[in-house]
């Protein structure tokens, strides 16, 4: 049994004094589709930032496919592809250049990167815009460009931080299908999302984080079993079962 991600006792206190993570421990099996859920400010993005080395942790250990991010940062980073929550590419560049340049940061020669980038962009439905400036892309296309960029070095572990935020329903379903296919190819996925239906559709394992602590973790079925009918909000149906469980777990007591 290989773990794609192992986090032990991860703590992060920002310079402002905010304690974002209070001893998070988490494991994700290779090939799994794992959803990390939590309300705004729960610590999801801090965990992701720590895994990809954009946030310096206060204490704890993180390893990706057995490579500790402190001792073997280059080997750990080689395994990861990241789709961030916010757009972080140069909008004056062309999508093809953005993706091919990213390949360069992973040591992939342009002769390999260019055809690979063209295929990825076509597969993600932005093939006809790949030689236009990125600023001309629609919001949904920009999100898909982030996915293409994250996949260019063929990572074993893909992290998606709210990848479908602001994307219309039809496009979101298309992205779900694309992500399902990636899992079939053996890529491990960590997804954070506010659309609980998305997690319910895609994830086989789920963790719920609130105020910097993991408050529930298990398979989708195990999480759904936490549903407490007596504690249902408003006394009636509000959404999917996972949404009810999420609200019960994260509500202010």
């Amino acid at each position: 049994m290989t773990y794609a991600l192992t986090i032990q006792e991860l703590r992060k206190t920002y310079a402002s004094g905010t304690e974002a993570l209070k001893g998070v421990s988490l494991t994700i099996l290779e090939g799994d589709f794992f959803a990390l859920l939590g309300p705004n400010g729960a610590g999801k993005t801090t965990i992701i930032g720590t895994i990809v080395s954009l946030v310096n942790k206060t204490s704890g250990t993180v390893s990706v496919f057995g490579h500790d991010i402190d001792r073997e940062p280059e080997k750990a980073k080689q395994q990861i592809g990241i789709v961030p929550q916010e757009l972080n590419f140069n909008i004056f560049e062309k999508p093809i250049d953005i993706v091919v340049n990213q390949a360069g940061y992973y040591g992939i020669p342009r002769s390999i990167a260019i055809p690979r980038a063209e295929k990825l962009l076509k597969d993600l439905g932005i093939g006809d815009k790949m030689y236009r400036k990125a600023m001309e892309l629609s919001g949904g296309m920009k999100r898909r460009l982030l996915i293409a960029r994250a996949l260019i070095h063929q990572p074993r572990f893909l992290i998606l931080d709210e990848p479908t935020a602001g994307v219309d329903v039809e496009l979101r379903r298309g992205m779900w299908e694309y992500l399902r296919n990636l899992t079939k190819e053996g890529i491990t996925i960590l997804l954070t999302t506010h659309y609980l239906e998305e997690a319910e559709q895609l994830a086989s394992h789920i963790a719920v984080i609130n105020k910097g602590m993991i408050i529930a973790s298990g398979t989708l079925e195990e999480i759904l079993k936490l549903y407490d009918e007596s504690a249902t909000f408003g006394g009636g149906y509000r959404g999917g079962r996972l949404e009810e469980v999420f609200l019960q777990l994260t509500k202010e007591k």
Partner: protein
Amino acid sequence: MLRKDIVRMFRIWVQTFLPNVITSVLYFAVFGTMLGSRIGDMQGVSYMLFVVPGIVMLSIVTSSYANSSFTFFQSKFFMRSIEEILVSPTPSWLLVAGFATGGIVRGVMVGALVLLISLFFTGLTISVFNALVIFSFAILTALVFSLAGLVNGIYAKSIDAINIVPTFVLTPLVYLGGVFYSVEVLPGWWHTLTLFNPIFYIINGFRYGFLGLADVPLATCFTILGAFIALGIAVNWYLLRTGLGLHQ
């Protein structure tokens, strides 16, 4: 990374190459031609020939500094595209090398353009005492100021912080470092003070390559450049490795 930077600097050539060229034309016209004809000779050569190395060096210093400081700051602050690199396995030393080389390319190209323009003001005559010294000083100076600009870009929290150092530190040091005069003409205290200005040694060494004239030995100039390069590489490597000023 270097390819991307070079493509960028040519795409926006009006911002990257043209300003230094125009400023230099003004320097040559005002100081070299108009005032220079009244000043006469400096250290035995015409004033125009004397100021050419200083003005070329001025353009190398400002261009290489601006390139790495602004490129890094822009990708960190406006687009956050620096994250593309930070999440990749690119080692810190390679990041330093990439940004510094971008600065060298721009600095040396602008320097070459300004030198070319100087030919129109010197009547197509230019003295070359030692081409190897000229070339070495151009590259090493561009490297020093690329590294300095990179430190600025990494630490800067606002666009003001990018402009403060060139305006209040770099420009006075360059102007008082002997671009337009020899330290021989300065009074005693000012002469002594100038010896603490690192840019004085850089301009001096560069001028030696053109005219064979120097106020201080060439070895001293190379040693000071070498020390600043070592310091710049170490500081940048440490900042990128630890994420100081970058990571949260």
